[in-house]
């Protein structure tokens, strides 16, 4: 889904550096300002850009957002709930001599953390959903990022898709032979799945390396030309808006 949108979104004609600038600006605003309201505003702006400008379906965006939000929710619980004898709590319960409660400081920390996380995640989703990985790595190379880092990024990205394809097909094969029909069999099948996926990933990486070597790989992956033209006016506008937002965020 991520890759589909990266190649077929409404902002596809923009140069990747323009999209990278927007993302970087949003992330800097979030980092500089300590106010949750600013971070939450950044989240709303990027969500609007993703759904409105890039034309990603709201349903799909919410689905993709659900995964980091789920992780965030688990983390928030650990932050919000404290245990300490005798501390003032908004809500508390006493068991075995300990006071388990939700403290006001915990709520404030959780509030700030969730706003920042949502803001950063939405900024990264904006970049991922509007920029194919090949263009992103080419753009990073033009910014003088070391080749090794961009090459590793690309190979890891591709590796994730290959691994998920292997896992999906193997789970299907296991399901067809009743591999997940109850809890005990599910555990056993999961063990086989992890082992097989690991071994398969190693085999595939060796085959990939051979395939690249026989086609003349020479230390770094070839750099593909970016098909979109950089619009200096648009880039200047993006940089100006980002800079203004950063300054305002610093003052607020």
């Amino acid at each position, binding site marked *: *889904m991520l890759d*589909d949108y990266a190649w077929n979104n409404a902002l596809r004609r923009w140069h990747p550096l323009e999209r990278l600038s927007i993302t970087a600006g949003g992330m800097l605003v979030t980092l500089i300002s300590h106010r949750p309201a600013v971070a939450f505003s950044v989240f709303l702006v990027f969500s609007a850009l993703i759904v409105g400008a890039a034309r990603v379906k709201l349903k799909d965006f919410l689905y993709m957002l659900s995964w980091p939000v789920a992780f965030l929710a688990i983390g928030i619980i650990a932050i919000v709930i404290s245990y300490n004898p005798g501390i003032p709590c908004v809500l508390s319960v006493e068991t075995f001599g300990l006071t388990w409660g939700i403290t006001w400081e915990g709520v404030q920390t959780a509030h700030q953390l969730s706003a920042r996380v949502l803001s950063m995640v939405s900024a990264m989703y904006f970049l991922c959903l509007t920029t194919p990985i090949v263009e992103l790595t080419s753009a990073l190379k033009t910014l003088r990022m070391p080749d090794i880092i961009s090459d590793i990024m690309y190979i890891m990205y591709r590796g994730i898709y290959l691994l998920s394809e*292997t896992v999906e*097909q*193997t789970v*299907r*094969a*296991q*399901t*067809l*032979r*009743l*591999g997940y*029909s109850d809890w005990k*069999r599910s555990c056993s099948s999961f063990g*086989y*799945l992890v*082992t*097989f996926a690991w*071994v*398969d990933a190693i*085999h595939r990486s060796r085959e990939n390396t051979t395939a690249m070597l026989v086609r003349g790989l020479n230390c770094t992956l070839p750099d593909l030309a970016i098909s979109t033209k950089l619009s200096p006016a648009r880039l200047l506008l993006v940089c100006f808006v980002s800079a203004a937002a950063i300054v305002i965020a610093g003052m607020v």
Partner: protein
Amino acid sequence: MTKEVYVFEVQDLSYRYPGQVNGLKNVNCCIPEGKRTVIMGQNGAGKSTLLWTLTGVLRPHQGRVLFQEKPLDYSKPGLTYLRSRVGLVMQNPDTQVFCPTVYQDVAYGPTNSGLLKHEIEDRVKWALQAVGASHLVERPVPFLSFGEKQKVALAGVLAMRPSVILLDEPASGLDAAGVESLFSELDRLHSQGVTLVMTTHDIDLAWSWADYFIIMDRGTTVWEGDFSELSQDPHLLFEFGLKPPVVTVVHESLLKIGFIPPSLPRPRHIRDLISALETEPPSKKVREWIASRP
């Protein structure tokens, strides 16, 4: 006259992949019990998608599948029952054979079926023998060749003793000897009453093997029937983007130039044509041709 019994009936089935890509569109077909059925079509016709819906892996957005005259039950017990009766050999054995050794992989299905240890051992032994892979029993799976993995994948499905076996392009990646070996095993299973369903785009293979044909094009079924119906007009295949098998083209050419009599039945395989030529008395034209040779 005995009524045809269908192991699967597909009624107005549609399935859409994520991203609004149509996999199947209003598919209607029946798979007869005890016969060798082939589902044919070009690449992207929806053959594999149809197999996945028959096993309950893909749930249709519209329509239904009847298994043994009852609608598929997508609950856990329902799917467990379905998958104990219907086995699927996938196109790529690399992801279907996943255990460390061949024995463990073939024993995987019977173990999940809750059989006792000695029963599992008997099943594994029988299944590997059935596919001619007994010598591979202790071999680590990563060291198997593609053809060997194909055999082990089939053995893994056989070990569950299904009454229906679905095979997705089983001949792809196999050499001629491998194909012959595989199909002789399949014919042996068929003689024991197993219903076989195969997808392929190889018309020559399908022509020589199948009893019943289902032809698909762009996600929908365009024709289905017995071999006897299709053999009356093999050029029907042109309408569906397929070519008639080589043996019928050769047969018609020889018929046209008078080398063979019209009474000769349509052959299914080139060797049927050759043996018919060897046993039939030569026609007048053939005698003249032979006489004219130095």
